[in-house]
């Protein structure tokens, strides 16, 4: 490289993207912002969300839904009709649990992209308990929940051990295991577990004692209180416990943690296994709470939604609750758009992706300062 020396003494243009103008009109400069106030961060998040929602509206209007109909489906009906509100809350419960799971993994810088696979294995083990009628009936549901948590954690075990032992990239390993889990699910549903009553490819209906009971308002079931309890426990774990502190060290500066003699490996292991267990629980809540059986596609889309929820919530448990409710609205509104306006379900996924990308882009303004340089 022969050009090195003269270029070194050139005055630094501030951003690679802005070419210095011939006529001295000034240009837009980019600086790294050292400290961003909480207000600025909130404003950027709100701006990113607004931009994402605007893009989403544009997409849906382009697909043939009127603006007034959008307002009706997304806002009015959910605020005015208790049935819709209940549908959103039922939807939000597993979303909050899977989002909490994603948040725990992300807190220790472990990219768990395998939430869907962990949900599937959790639900498969819970269904196995139901089909085998394990244990006495009064505790069957608890057994199913434990089996689901164990299954989710077990599905996480290989990726985390491989990452810790041989530094195998967890993004790819967790993602590949999603496909393995899905194939296992299809094998069970098209093979030994096919519903004998209808011969459809889903499991037999759970008995009444194997379903999450309704709590008495609309058709809400115990999934929501369970999600709330898990989120509160998660908030305590993150904010009020030694484990939460260790997770913060493992996420921000694991080398320092190791130098201080803190159990960094154990922390990563605990946080990721917890992440898998929570994903398994989310699978259980969908199957035992809403579907009452194991179906082929019960987990489809939840993996990405969990990542989105954790990302929007900045990995905070209470933020997960808020983000899960918003995504719940999107899911429910998406279902009625599908029925009444023939908008395919993939639109919901597209909207979530657009929102993620807009919010991620808005972070630029948190970390950088734009200035007009004359």
């Amino acid at each position, binding site marked *: *490289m022969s*050009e*090195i020396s003269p*270029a*070194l003494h050139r005055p*630094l243009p*501030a*951003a*690679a*993207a802005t070419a210095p103008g011939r006529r001295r009109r000034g240009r837009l400069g*980019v*600086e*790294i912002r050292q400290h961003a106030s909480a207000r600025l961060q909130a404003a950027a998040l709100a701006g990113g969300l607004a931009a994402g929602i605007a893009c989403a509206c544009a*997409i849906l209007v382009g*697909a043939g839904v009127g603006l007034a109909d959008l307002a009706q489906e997304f806002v009015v009906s959910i605020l005015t009709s208790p049935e819709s509100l209940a549908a959103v809350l039922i939807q939000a419960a597993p979303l909050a649990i899977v989002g909490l799971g994603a948040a725990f993994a992300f807190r220790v810088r472990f*990219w768990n*992209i395998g939430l869907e696979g962990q949900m599937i294995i959790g639900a498969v083990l819970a269904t196995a308990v139901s089909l085998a009628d394990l244990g006495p009936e009064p505790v069957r549901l608890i057994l199913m929940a434990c089996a689901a948590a164990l299954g989710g954690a077990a599905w996480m075990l290989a990726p985390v051990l*491989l990452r810790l032992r*041989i*530094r*195998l*990239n967890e*993004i*790819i*390993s967790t*993602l*590949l*295991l999603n*496909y*393995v889990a899905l*194939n*296992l699910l*299809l*094998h069970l549903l*098209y*093979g030994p577990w096919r519903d004998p009553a209808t011969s459809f490819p889903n499991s037999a209906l759970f008995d009444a004692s194997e379903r999450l009971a309704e709590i008495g308002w609309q058709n809400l079931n115990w999934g929501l209180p369970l999600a709330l309890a898990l989120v509160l426990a998660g908030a305590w774990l993150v904010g009020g416990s030694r484990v939460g502190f260790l997770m913060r060290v493992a996420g921000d500066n694991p080398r320092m943690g190791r130098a201080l003699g803190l159990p960094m490996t154990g922390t990563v292991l605990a946080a990721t296994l917890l992440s898998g267990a929570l994903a398994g629980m989310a699978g259980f809540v969908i199957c035992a709470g809403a579907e009452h059986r194991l179906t082929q596609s019960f987990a489809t889309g939840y993996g*990405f939604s969990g*990542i989105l929820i954790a*990302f929007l919530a900045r990995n905070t448990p209470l933020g997960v609750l808020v983000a899960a409710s918003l995504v719940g609205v999107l899911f429910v509104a998406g279902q009625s758009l599908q029925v009444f306006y023939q*908008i*395919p*379900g*993939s*639109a*919901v*996924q*597209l*909207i*979530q*992706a*657009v929102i*993620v*990308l807009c919010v*991620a*882009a808005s*972070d*630029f303004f948190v*970390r*950088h300062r734009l200035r007009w340089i004359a």
Partner: protein
Amino acid sequence: MLIDFLVNWLAAVPEFAVPFALAALGLLVIEKAGVLSLGAEGFMLVGALAGIGAILGLGDHPAIALAAAAAAGAALSLLFSLLVVTLRVNQVIAGLGLVFLAQGLTGLVGTTQGWVNRPIGGLSALSFGPLSELPVVGPILFRHDAVVYLTVPVFALAAWILGRSMVGLRLRAVGDGPDAADAAGVSIGLMRFGATAAGAALVGLAGGYLSVGIARIWIEGMSGGRGWIAIALVIFARWQPWRALAGAVLFGAIEALIPRVAAAGIQVPQYFVGMIPYLATLGVMIWTCTRSGSRSLEPRALGLAHAREDR
């Protein structure tokens, strides 16, 4: 019987290997410039849909369809580059977001345009006259479509550009030491935008080949994780083009074997066979990670945004 099985299998390998090969090569180009591209699956999907869309909309011209597929991949990559190069978004988040964006977008467009489950003619095999009729060699070597035969020259070209040309030197400099490359007057932004667009065009082409050359139909999410397998292949290849081609052939052989196992009357549950590509990828990754010491050309600035003010 065994010979028939082997010939049948080996003859199918190239068609299955090409999507992996082109996608892995595209990713390799992108990653050589220091951009971690988890969006491969997304580039493949838009390529696959664009290929089918071009054929259904413009008539049965496979060449135009493949060009449309490459263009679609490159177009989507501009959004990705805008995010990770200009706005310095975390490359993992942007890549994942892009995959889901492409899944949603292709699902929506494919359904609203009515392109789902409409069989097309697609690519046909070239004929080499008497050569194609040879007993064993004919089906294995001389009965493939043009893309199969073009893949090897494309690899040679890419390997030469990356390893021997000035552009390749600058590209690798941007991926290995962006600060030094910047000081030497190489435009980091331009190099990364360009490399990502070129690589994404190859990944899009791989997707287009999948729909126009192999499946000859559009099915939602039809890339089925091949983009992720290609990402693993690049790691397995230690960022060396020819090793990526070898890995692609290995995975093409595995994928070509799957439908033939059942056809040969071997009783293995279908969905367990379906797990094989993913488990094989995992196995290959484990093998790569445990074998330390061999030369890896992993770009040192892979996944890091370049901010000149940050030094």
